[in-house]
Protein backbone atom coordinates (compact mmCIF):
# COMPACT_ATOMS: atom_id res chain seq x y z
CA UNK A 1 0.00 0.00 0.00
CA UNK A 2 2.77 2.40 0.95
CA UNK A 3 4.62 1.30 -2.15
CA UNK A 4 1.78 2.17 -4.47
CA UNK A 5 1.51 5.66 -2.95
CA UNK A 6 5.23 6.25 -3.37
CA UNK A 7 4.99 5.01 -6.95
CA UNK A 8 2.18 7.46 -7.76
CA UNK A 9 4.07 10.31 -6.10
CA UNK A 10 7.21 9.56 -8.07
CA UNK A 11 5.28 9.14 -11.31
CA UNK A 12 3.52 12.49 -10.84
CA UNK A 13 6.85 14.27 -10.31
CA UNK A 14 8.42 12.46 -13.25
CA UNK A 15 5.54 13.24 -15.61
CA UNK A 16 5.39 16.88 -14.52
CA UNK A 17 9.17 17.33 -14.79
CA UNK A 18 9.53 15.73 -18.22
CA UNK A 19 6.54 17.53 -19.67
CA UNK A 20 7.78 20.85 -18.23
CA UNK A 21 11.13 20.42 -20.00
CA UNK A 22 9.35 20.03 -23.33
CA UNK A 23 6.88 22.79 -22.48
CA UNK A 24 9.72 25.24 -21.77
CA UNK A 25 11.55 24.39 -25.01
CA UNK A 26 8.50 24.41 -27.27
CA UNK A 27 6.79 27.21 -25.33
CA UNK A 28 9.69 29.68 -25.61
CA UNK A 29 10.15 29.10 -29.34
CA UNK A 30 6.41 29.33 -30.03
CA UNK A 31 6.06 32.43 -27.86
CA UNK A 32 9.01 34.06 -29.66
CA UNK A 33 7.51 33.39 -33.08
CA UNK A 34 4.10 34.63 -31.98
CA UNK A 35 5.56 37.74 -30.34
CA UNK A 36 8.08 38.76 -33.01
CA UNK A 37 6.83 37.45 -36.35
CA UNK A 38 3.88 38.36 -38.48
CA UNK A 39 2.30 35.75 -40.68
CA UNK A 40 -1.12 34.81 -41.95
CA UNK A 41 -3.17 32.82 -39.50
CA UNK A 42 -0.97 33.77 -36.54
CA UNK A 43 -3.89 34.31 -34.21
CA UNK A 44 -5.48 31.07 -35.39
CA UNK A 45 -2.34 29.19 -34.33
CA UNK A 46 -2.43 30.98 -30.98
CA UNK A 47 -6.12 30.11 -30.59
CA UNK A 48 -5.55 26.42 -31.38
CA UNK A 49 -2.68 26.19 -28.91
CA UNK A 50 -4.69 27.94 -26.19
CA UNK A 51 -7.81 25.85 -26.71
CA UNK A 52 -6.73 23.02 -24.31
CA UNK A 53 -6.74 25.61 -21.50
CA UNK A 54 -10.40 26.41 -22.10
CA UNK A 55 -11.77 22.99 -23.07
CA UNK A 56 -12.74 20.55 -20.33
CA UNK A 57 -9.71 18.24 -19.96
CA UNK A 58 -11.78 15.16 -20.82
CA UNK A 59 -12.62 16.77 -24.17
CA UNK A 60 -8.93 17.43 -24.77
CA UNK A 61 -8.32 13.81 -23.82
CA UNK A 62 -10.95 12.69 -26.29
CA UNK A 63 -9.22 14.65 -29.09
CA UNK A 64 -5.89 13.14 -28.06
CA UNK A 65 -7.33 9.63 -28.32
CA UNK A 66 -8.67 10.41 -31.80
CA UNK A 67 -5.21 11.70 -32.73
CA UNK A 68 -2.87 9.29 -30.96
CA UNK A 69 -4.89 6.10 -30.39
CA UNK A 70 -3.98 3.01 -32.38
CA UNK A 71 -6.81 3.91 -34.78
CA UNK A 72 -5.92 7.60 -34.58
CA UNK A 73 -4.71 10.05 -37.22
CA UNK A 74 -1.10 9.92 -36.04
CA UNK A 75 -1.38 6.88 -33.83
CA UNK A 76 -2.14 4.47 -36.68
CA UNK A 77 0.93 5.22 -38.86
CA UNK A 78 3.08 5.28 -35.71
CA UNK A 79 1.72 1.87 -34.68
CA UNK A 80 2.17 0.40 -38.16
CA UNK A 81 5.73 1.71 -38.29
CA UNK A 82 6.92 0.74 -34.82
CA UNK A 83 4.35 -1.72 -33.45
CA UNK A 84 4.08 0.45 -30.33
CA UNK A 85 0.95 2.12 -29.06
CA UNK A 86 1.09 5.41 -27.23
CA UNK A 87 -2.02 4.99 -25.10
CA UNK A 88 -1.71 3.48 -21.60
CA UNK A 89 1.97 4.39 -21.14
CA UNK A 90 3.58 7.03 -18.97
CA UNK A 91 4.61 8.87 -22.13
CA UNK A 92 0.90 9.28 -22.80
CA UNK A 93 0.61 11.01 -19.41
CA UNK A 94 3.50 13.30 -20.41
CA UNK A 95 1.79 14.13 -23.72
CA UNK A 96 -1.52 14.89 -21.99
CA UNK A 97 0.16 17.16 -19.42
CA UNK A 98 2.18 18.82 -22.17
CA UNK A 99 -0.86 19.70 -24.26
CA UNK A 100 -2.91 20.94 -21.32
CA UNK A 101 -0.13 22.98 -19.66
CA UNK A 102 1.57 24.41 -22.78
CA UNK A 103 -0.83 27.37 -23.18
CA UNK A 104 0.20 28.71 -19.76
CA UNK A 105 3.83 28.83 -20.89
CA UNK A 106 3.06 30.38 -24.26
CA UNK A 107 0.68 33.01 -22.90
CA UNK A 108 2.96 34.28 -20.13
CA UNK A 109 6.16 34.18 -22.23
CA UNK A 110 4.55 35.86 -25.22
CA UNK A 111 3.24 38.68 -23.07
CA UNK A 112 6.68 39.11 -21.49
CA UNK A 113 8.47 39.12 -24.86
CA UNK A 114 6.03 41.60 -26.37
CA UNK A 115 6.62 44.01 -23.54
CA UNK A 116 10.40 44.13 -24.09
CA UNK A 117 11.40 47.70 -25.02
CA UNK A 118 11.73 47.83 -28.85
CA UNK A 119 14.68 50.27 -28.55
CA UNK A 120 16.88 47.56 -27.02
CA UNK A 121 16.09 45.17 -29.84
CA UNK A 122 16.67 47.79 -32.54
CA UNK A 123 19.93 48.82 -30.86
CA UNK A 124 21.10 45.21 -30.91
CA UNK A 125 20.33 44.95 -34.63
CA UNK A 126 22.01 48.30 -35.53
CA UNK A 127 25.10 47.13 -33.64
CA UNK A 128 25.25 44.22 -36.04
CA UNK A 129 23.93 41.40 -33.86
CA UNK A 130 22.15 38.56 -35.64
CA UNK A 131 18.56 37.67 -34.87
CA UNK A 132 19.60 34.60 -32.87
CA UNK A 133 22.06 36.58 -30.78
CA UNK A 134 19.49 39.30 -30.18
CA UNK A 135 16.94 36.70 -29.13
CA UNK A 136 19.29 34.93 -26.74
CA UNK A 137 21.10 37.95 -25.29
CA UNK A 138 18.46 40.67 -25.30
CA UNK A 139 14.92 39.36 -25.58
CA UNK A 140 15.18 36.23 -23.43
CA UNK A 141 16.99 37.85 -20.47
CA UNK A 142 14.56 40.76 -20.51
CA UNK A 143 11.54 38.49 -20.46
CA UNK A 144 12.99 36.17 -17.81
CA UNK A 145 10.25 36.98 -15.29
CA UNK A 146 7.45 35.88 -17.57
CA UNK A 147 9.32 32.78 -18.70
CA UNK A 148 10.00 31.61 -15.14
CA UNK A 149 6.41 32.30 -14.13
CA UNK A 150 5.22 30.34 -17.16
CA UNK A 151 7.43 27.38 -16.32
CA UNK A 152 6.26 27.30 -12.70
CA UNK A 153 2.60 27.53 -13.71
CA UNK A 154 3.06 24.80 -16.31
CA UNK A 155 4.75 22.47 -13.84
CA UNK A 156 1.98 23.05 -11.31
CA UNK A 157 -0.71 22.44 -13.94
CA UNK A 158 1.07 19.30 -15.13
CA UNK A 159 1.27 17.96 -11.56
CA UNK A 160 -2.48 18.33 -11.10
CA UNK A 161 -3.46 17.12 -14.60
CA UNK A 162 -6.29 14.62 -14.36
CA UNK A 163 -8.95 14.52 -17.08
CA UNK A 164 -6.89 14.29 -20.28
CA UNK A 165 -4.39 11.98 -18.59
CA UNK A 166 -7.14 9.62 -17.45
CA UNK A 167 -8.41 9.38 -21.02
CA UNK A 168 -5.09 8.92 -22.84
CA UNK A 169 -2.92 7.18 -20.26
CA UNK A 170 -5.70 5.32 -18.47
CA UNK A 171 -5.80 4.36 -14.81
CA UNK A 172 -3.37 1.43 -14.75
CA UNK A 173 -2.28 0.87 -11.14
CA UNK A 174 1.50 0.62 -10.98
CA UNK A 175 1.87 1.95 -14.53
CA UNK A 176 0.03 5.18 -15.23
CA UNK A 177 -1.73 6.10 -11.98
CA UNK A 178 -0.37 9.53 -11.12
CA UNK A 179 -1.41 11.00 -7.75
CA UNK A 180 -4.59 12.71 -9.03
CA UNK A 181 -5.68 9.50 -10.76
CA UNK A 182 -4.80 7.25 -7.82
CA UNK A 183 -6.76 9.55 -5.48
CA UNK A 184 -9.80 9.46 -7.79
CA UNK A 185 -9.55 5.70 -8.08
CA UNK A 186 -9.17 4.91 -4.38
CA UNK A 187 -11.81 7.41 -3.30
CA UNK A 188 -14.36 6.08 -5.79
CA UNK A 189 -13.83 2.51 -4.67
CA UNK A 190 -14.31 3.31 -1.01
CA UNK A 191 -10.70 3.10 0.24
CA UNK A 192 -11.02 6.32 2.15
CA UNK A 193 -8.14 6.02 4.61
CA UNK A 194 -5.70 5.49 1.75
CA UNK A 195 -7.24 8.34 -0.25
CA UNK A 196 -6.91 10.65 2.76
CA UNK A 197 -3.21 9.88 3.15
CA UNK A 198 -2.65 10.61 -0.53
CA UNK A 199 -4.64 13.84 -0.46
CA UNK A 200 -2.63 15.14 2.48
CA UNK A 201 0.71 14.11 0.94
CA UNK A 202 -0.15 15.63 -2.42
CA UNK A 203 -1.39 18.89 -0.90
CA UNK A 204 1.79 19.23 1.16
CA UNK A 205 4.00 18.47 -1.82
CA UNK A 206 2.19 20.96 -4.06
CA UNK A 207 2.31 23.60 -1.32
CA UNK A 208 6.02 23.02 -0.83
CA UNK A 209 6.64 23.30 -4.57
CA UNK A 210 4.77 26.60 -4.86
CA UNK A 211 6.59 28.01 -1.81
CA UNK A 212 10.03 27.00 -3.11
CA UNK A 213 9.36 28.24 -6.63
CA UNK A 214 8.34 31.63 -5.24
CA UNK A 215 11.54 31.89 -3.23
CA UNK A 216 13.72 30.65 -6.06
CA UNK A 217 11.94 32.90 -8.55
CA UNK A 218 12.71 35.97 -6.41
CA UNK A 219 16.37 35.07 -6.24
CA UNK A 220 16.65 34.54 -10.00
CA UNK A 221 14.94 37.85 -10.84
Amino acid at each position, binding site marked *: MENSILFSLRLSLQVAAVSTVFIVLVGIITAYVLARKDFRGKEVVDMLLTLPMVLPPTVTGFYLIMLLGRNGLLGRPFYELTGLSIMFTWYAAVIASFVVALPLMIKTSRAAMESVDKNFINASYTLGRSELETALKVILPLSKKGIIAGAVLSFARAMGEFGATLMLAGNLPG*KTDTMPIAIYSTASSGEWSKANVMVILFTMLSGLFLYLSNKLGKRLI
Partner: protein
Amino acid sequence: MRWFKTRLSLVFLWLLLAVSVAYAGPTGEITVSAALSLKGPFEDIGKVMEKRGVRVIFNFGASGMLQKQIEGGAPVDVFAAASLKEMDELLKKGLIKEKTKFNFAGNSIVLVSSLKSGLRVKSFSDLTMGEIKRIAIGNPATVPAGKYSEEVLRHFGVWDAIKNKLVFAENVKQVMDYVVREEVEAGMLFQTDALARKDDVKILIEAPQDSHKPVVYAIAAISGTKNEQAAKEFISLVMSEEGRGILQRYGFRLLKEMKHDRQR
Protein backbone atom coordinates in the same frame (compact mmCIF):
# COMPACT_ATOMS: atom_id res chain seq x y z
CA MET B 1 -19.21 -49.38 -0.40
CA ARG B 2 -19.08 -45.91 1.02
CA TRP B 3 -15.37 -46.38 1.69
CA PHE B 4 -14.89 -47.30 -1.95
CA LYS B 5 -16.72 -44.17 -3.11
CA THR B 6 -14.60 -41.79 -1.08
CA ARG B 7 -11.52 -43.57 -2.36
CA LEU B 8 -12.71 -43.20 -5.90
CA SER B 9 -13.43 -39.49 -5.55
CA LEU B 10 -10.00 -39.00 -3.97
CA VAL B 11 -8.38 -40.66 -6.95
CA PHE B 12 -10.38 -38.41 -9.19
CA LEU B 13 -9.26 -35.35 -7.28
CA TRP B 14 -5.64 -36.35 -7.65
CA LEU B 15 -6.08 -36.97 -11.33
CA LEU B 16 -7.64 -33.54 -11.75
CA LEU B 17 -4.80 -31.94 -9.85
CA ALA B 18 -2.18 -33.78 -11.90
CA VAL B 19 -3.85 -32.72 -15.14
CA SER B 20 -4.14 -29.11 -14.08
CA VAL B 21 -0.46 -29.02 -13.08
CA ALA B 22 0.62 -30.66 -16.32
CA TYR B 23 -1.47 -28.20 -18.33
CA ALA B 24 0.81 -25.19 -18.51
CA GLY B 25 -1.95 -22.75 -19.46
CA PRO B 26 -1.55 -19.31 -20.95
CA THR B 27 1.25 -17.00 -19.89
CA GLY B 28 2.23 -13.41 -20.40
CA GLU B 29 0.43 -10.20 -19.69
CA ILE B 30 -3.04 -8.85 -20.39
CA THR B 31 -4.68 -5.48 -19.91
CA VAL B 32 -8.21 -5.47 -18.52
CA SER B 33 -10.35 -2.33 -18.74
CA ALA B 34 -13.02 -2.60 -16.06
CA ALA B 35 -15.73 -0.42 -14.53
CA LEU B 36 -14.49 1.27 -11.38
CA SER B 37 -17.09 -0.51 -9.25
CA LEU B 38 -15.37 -3.83 -10.07
CA LYS B 39 -12.04 -2.71 -8.61
CA GLY B 40 -12.22 -4.77 -5.41
CA PRO B 41 -13.21 -8.19 -6.81
CA PHE B 42 -11.17 -7.83 -9.99
CA GLU B 43 -7.98 -7.07 -8.12
CA ASP B 44 -8.54 -10.28 -6.16
CA ILE B 45 -9.18 -12.20 -9.38
CA GLY B 46 -6.04 -10.63 -10.85
CA LYS B 47 -4.01 -12.09 -7.98
CA VAL B 48 -5.37 -15.55 -8.78
CA MET B 49 -4.38 -15.06 -12.43
CA GLU B 50 -0.92 -14.00 -11.34
CA LYS B 51 -0.51 -17.32 -9.55
CA ARG B 52 -1.40 -19.02 -12.82
CA GLY B 53 1.38 -17.16 -14.58
CA VAL B 54 -0.54 -14.34 -16.26
CA ARG B 55 0.13 -10.79 -15.19
CA VAL B 56 -3.02 -8.69 -15.26
CA ILE B 57 -2.77 -4.94 -15.71
CA PHE B 58 -5.98 -3.14 -14.85
CA ASN B 59 -7.42 0.06 -16.21
CA PHE B 60 -10.34 1.17 -14.04
CA GLY B 61 -12.71 3.94 -15.07
CA ALA B 62 -16.27 4.85 -16.02
CA SER B 63 -17.63 2.33 -18.54
CA GLY B 64 -18.40 5.01 -21.13
CA MET B 65 -14.85 6.36 -21.00
CA LEU B 66 -13.36 2.87 -21.28
CA GLN B 67 -15.54 2.31 -24.35
CA LYS B 68 -14.19 5.49 -25.98
CA GLN B 69 -10.62 4.37 -25.25
CA ILE B 70 -11.22 1.02 -26.92
CA GLU B 71 -12.80 2.72 -29.94
CA GLY B 72 -9.68 4.90 -30.16
CA GLY B 73 -7.49 1.82 -30.29
CA ALA B 74 -6.32 1.46 -26.70
CA PRO B 75 -4.22 -1.73 -26.25
CA VAL B 76 -6.83 -3.61 -24.19
CA ASP B 77 -7.45 -7.39 -24.08
CA VAL B 78 -10.58 -7.67 -21.91
CA PHE B 79 -13.41 -5.21 -21.25
CA ALA B 80 -15.82 -5.46 -18.31
CA ALA B 81 -18.64 -2.89 -18.29
CA ALA B 82 -21.19 -1.91 -15.66
CA SER B 83 -24.03 -2.01 -18.22
CA LEU B 84 -24.90 -3.68 -21.48
CA LYS B 85 -25.06 -0.44 -23.46
CA GLU B 86 -21.30 0.01 -23.89
CA MET B 87 -20.82 -3.66 -24.69
CA ASP B 88 -23.54 -3.66 -27.37
CA GLU B 89 -22.12 -0.56 -29.02
CA LEU B 90 -18.65 -2.12 -29.21
CA LEU B 91 -20.17 -5.34 -30.52
CA LYS B 92 -21.92 -3.39 -33.30
CA LYS B 93 -18.58 -1.89 -34.30
CA GLY B 94 -16.96 -5.32 -34.34
CA LEU B 95 -14.52 -4.38 -31.60
CA ILE B 96 -15.28 -7.29 -29.26
CA LYS B 97 -15.41 -11.04 -29.85
CA GLU B 98 -19.07 -11.99 -29.60
CA LYS B 99 -18.34 -15.56 -28.51
CA THR B 100 -16.44 -14.36 -25.45
CA LYS B 101 -19.19 -12.00 -24.27
CA PHE B 102 -21.01 -12.93 -21.07
CA ASN B 103 -23.22 -11.26 -18.52
CA PHE B 104 -21.43 -12.14 -15.32
CA ALA B 105 -22.92 -10.27 -12.37
CA GLY B 106 -25.72 -8.07 -11.16
CA ASN B 107 -26.16 -5.42 -8.50
CA SER B 108 -29.01 -4.08 -6.37
CA ILE B 109 -30.13 -0.64 -5.34
CA VAL B 110 -30.22 -0.02 -1.58
CA LEU B 111 -31.44 2.75 0.69
CA VAL B 112 -28.75 3.75 3.20
CA SER B 113 -28.34 6.12 6.11
CA SER B 114 -25.36 7.12 8.21
CA LEU B 115 -24.42 4.46 10.75
CA LYS B 116 -24.94 7.06 13.49
CA SER B 117 -28.47 7.88 12.39
CA GLY B 118 -31.38 6.43 14.37
CA LEU B 119 -33.67 6.54 11.36
CA ARG B 120 -36.27 3.77 11.18
CA VAL B 121 -37.44 3.07 7.67
CA LYS B 122 -39.16 -0.17 6.76
CA SER B 123 -40.37 0.54 3.26
CA PHE B 124 -39.84 3.07 0.49
CA SER B 125 -43.21 4.66 1.27
CA ASP B 126 -41.78 5.63 4.69
CA LEU B 127 -39.61 8.14 2.82
CA THR B 128 -42.59 10.49 2.82
CA MET B 129 -42.45 10.94 6.62
CA GLY B 130 -41.52 14.35 7.98
CA GLU B 131 -38.36 13.21 9.78
CA ILE B 132 -36.71 12.72 6.42
CA LYS B 133 -35.96 16.11 4.97
CA ARG B 134 -33.44 15.29 2.25
CA ILE B 135 -32.63 12.18 0.21
CA ALA B 136 -29.55 11.98 -2.02
CA ILE B 137 -29.63 10.05 -5.29
CA GLY B 138 -27.42 10.18 -8.37
CA ASN B 139 -28.60 12.53 -11.11
CA PRO B 140 -30.89 10.20 -13.12
CA ALA B 141 -29.83 11.90 -16.36
CA THR B 142 -26.14 11.10 -16.00
CA VAL B 143 -25.54 8.61 -13.17
CA PRO B 144 -26.63 4.98 -13.76
CA ALA B 145 -27.32 4.38 -10.04
CA GLY B 146 -29.50 7.49 -10.08
CA LYS B 147 -31.51 6.25 -13.03
CA TYR B 148 -32.23 2.95 -11.24
CA SER B 149 -33.10 4.85 -8.03
CA GLU B 150 -35.68 6.88 -9.92
CA GLU B 151 -37.18 3.64 -11.28
CA VAL B 152 -37.44 2.23 -7.75
CA LEU B 153 -39.09 5.37 -6.39
CA ARG B 154 -41.54 5.45 -9.27
CA HIS B 155 -42.26 1.73 -8.82
CA PHE B 156 -43.30 2.35 -5.22
CA GLY B 157 -45.29 5.42 -6.27
CA VAL B 158 -43.46 7.88 -4.03
CA TRP B 159 -41.44 9.79 -6.68
CA ASP B 160 -43.89 12.72 -6.92
CA ALA B 161 -44.45 12.89 -3.17
CA ILE B 162 -40.76 13.12 -2.26
CA LYS B 163 -39.50 15.00 -5.34
CA ASN B 164 -38.86 18.12 -3.27
CA LYS B 165 -36.64 16.20 -0.86
CA LEU B 166 -34.33 14.81 -3.53
CA VAL B 167 -30.77 16.07 -3.83
CA PHE B 168 -29.12 15.09 -7.13
CA ALA B 169 -25.44 14.16 -6.96
CA GLU B 170 -23.11 13.96 -9.93
CA ASN B 171 -21.67 10.57 -8.96
CA VAL B 172 -22.13 7.76 -6.45
CA LYS B 173 -19.20 9.01 -4.36
CA GLN B 174 -21.02 12.30 -3.81
CA VAL B 175 -24.20 10.48 -2.67
CA MET B 176 -22.01 8.60 -0.20
CA ASP B 177 -20.39 11.80 1.07
CA TYR B 178 -23.75 13.48 1.70
CA VAL B 179 -24.97 10.44 3.66
CA VAL B 180 -21.80 10.00 5.74
CA ARG B 181 -21.64 13.71 6.61
CA GLU B 182 -25.36 13.58 7.45
CA GLU B 183 -26.14 16.40 5.04
CA VAL B 184 -29.05 14.16 4.03
CA GLU B 185 -31.07 11.68 6.10
CA ALA B 186 -30.87 8.93 3.50
CA GLY B 187 -29.39 8.10 0.13
CA MET B 188 -29.75 5.51 -2.61
CA LEU B 189 -26.88 3.70 -4.28
CA PHE B 190 -25.59 0.30 -5.36
CA GLN B 191 -25.34 -2.43 -2.73
CA THR B 192 -21.64 -2.95 -3.57
CA ASP B 193 -20.89 0.73 -2.87
CA ALA B 194 -22.74 0.53 0.45
CA LEU B 195 -20.89 -2.64 1.50
CA ALA B 196 -17.53 -1.06 0.64
CA ARG B 197 -18.17 1.47 3.42
CA LYS B 198 -20.06 -0.58 5.96
CA ASP B 199 -18.19 1.18 8.79
CA ASP B 200 -19.88 4.45 7.85
CA VAL B 201 -23.29 3.58 6.44
CA LYS B 202 -26.01 1.05 7.10
CA ILE B 203 -28.35 -0.49 4.60
CA LEU B 204 -31.98 0.20 5.50
CA ILE B 205 -33.76 -1.52 2.61
CA GLU B 206 -32.70 -3.42 -0.48
CA ALA B 207 -34.94 -2.60 -3.43
CA PRO B 208 -36.56 -5.74 -4.89
CA GLN B 209 -35.13 -6.78 -8.26
CA ASP B 210 -38.44 -6.27 -10.03
CA SER B 211 -38.63 -2.62 -8.96
CA HIS B 212 -36.02 -1.48 -11.48
CA LYS B 213 -34.45 -2.57 -14.77
CA PRO B 214 -31.85 -5.26 -14.11
CA VAL B 215 -28.32 -4.02 -13.38
CA VAL B 216 -26.09 -6.26 -15.46
CA TYR B 217 -22.32 -6.37 -15.75
CA ALA B 218 -20.88 -7.81 -18.96
CA ILE B 219 -17.41 -8.99 -19.95
CA ALA B 220 -15.80 -9.77 -23.33
CA ALA B 221 -12.45 -10.14 -25.08
CA ILE B 222 -11.40 -7.35 -27.44
CA SER B 223 -11.08 -8.24 -31.14
CA GLY B 224 -7.56 -6.89 -31.40
CA THR B 225 -6.20 -8.81 -28.40
CA LYS B 226 -2.67 -10.12 -28.80
CA ASN B 227 -3.09 -12.71 -26.08
CA GLU B 228 -6.43 -14.31 -26.75
CA GLN B 229 -5.71 -17.43 -24.69
CA ALA B 230 -4.94 -15.43 -21.56
CA ALA B 231 -7.94 -13.13 -22.18
CA LYS B 232 -10.24 -16.15 -22.39
CA GLU B 233 -8.64 -17.64 -19.29
CA PHE B 234 -9.38 -14.44 -17.38
CA ILE B 235 -13.00 -14.46 -18.52
CA SER B 236 -13.43 -18.13 -17.52
CA LEU B 237 -11.96 -17.36 -14.12
CA VAL B 238 -14.49 -14.57 -13.61
CA MET B 239 -17.26 -17.00 -14.56
CA SER B 240 -15.92 -19.88 -12.45
CA GLU B 241 -17.04 -20.89 -8.93
CA GLU B 242 -13.96 -19.15 -7.54
CA GLY B 243 -14.62 -15.93 -9.45
CA ARG B 244 -18.29 -15.92 -8.53
CA GLY B 245 -17.39 -16.43 -4.89
CA ILE B 246 -15.15 -13.38 -4.98
CA LEU B 247 -17.82 -11.26 -6.70
CA GLN B 248 -20.40 -12.36 -4.14
CA ARG B 249 -18.11 -11.42 -1.27
CA TYR B 250 -18.12 -7.83 -2.56
CA GLY B 251 -21.91 -7.75 -2.69
CA PHE B 252 -22.47 -8.49 -6.36
CA ARG B 253 -25.50 -10.57 -7.29
CA LEU B 254 -25.06 -13.70 -9.31
CA LEU B 255 -27.29 -13.99 -12.35
CA LYS B 256 -29.62 -16.98 -12.44
CA GLU B 257 -29.22 -17.86 -16.07
CA MET B 258 -25.47 -17.40 -15.82
CA LYS B 259 -23.71 -20.34 -17.36
CA HIS B 260 -20.34 -20.27 -18.96
CA ASP B 261 -21.18 -22.21 -22.10
CA ARG B 262 -24.44 -20.41 -22.66
CA GLN B 263 -23.41 -18.96 -26.01
CA ARG B 264 -21.10 -21.64 -27.27
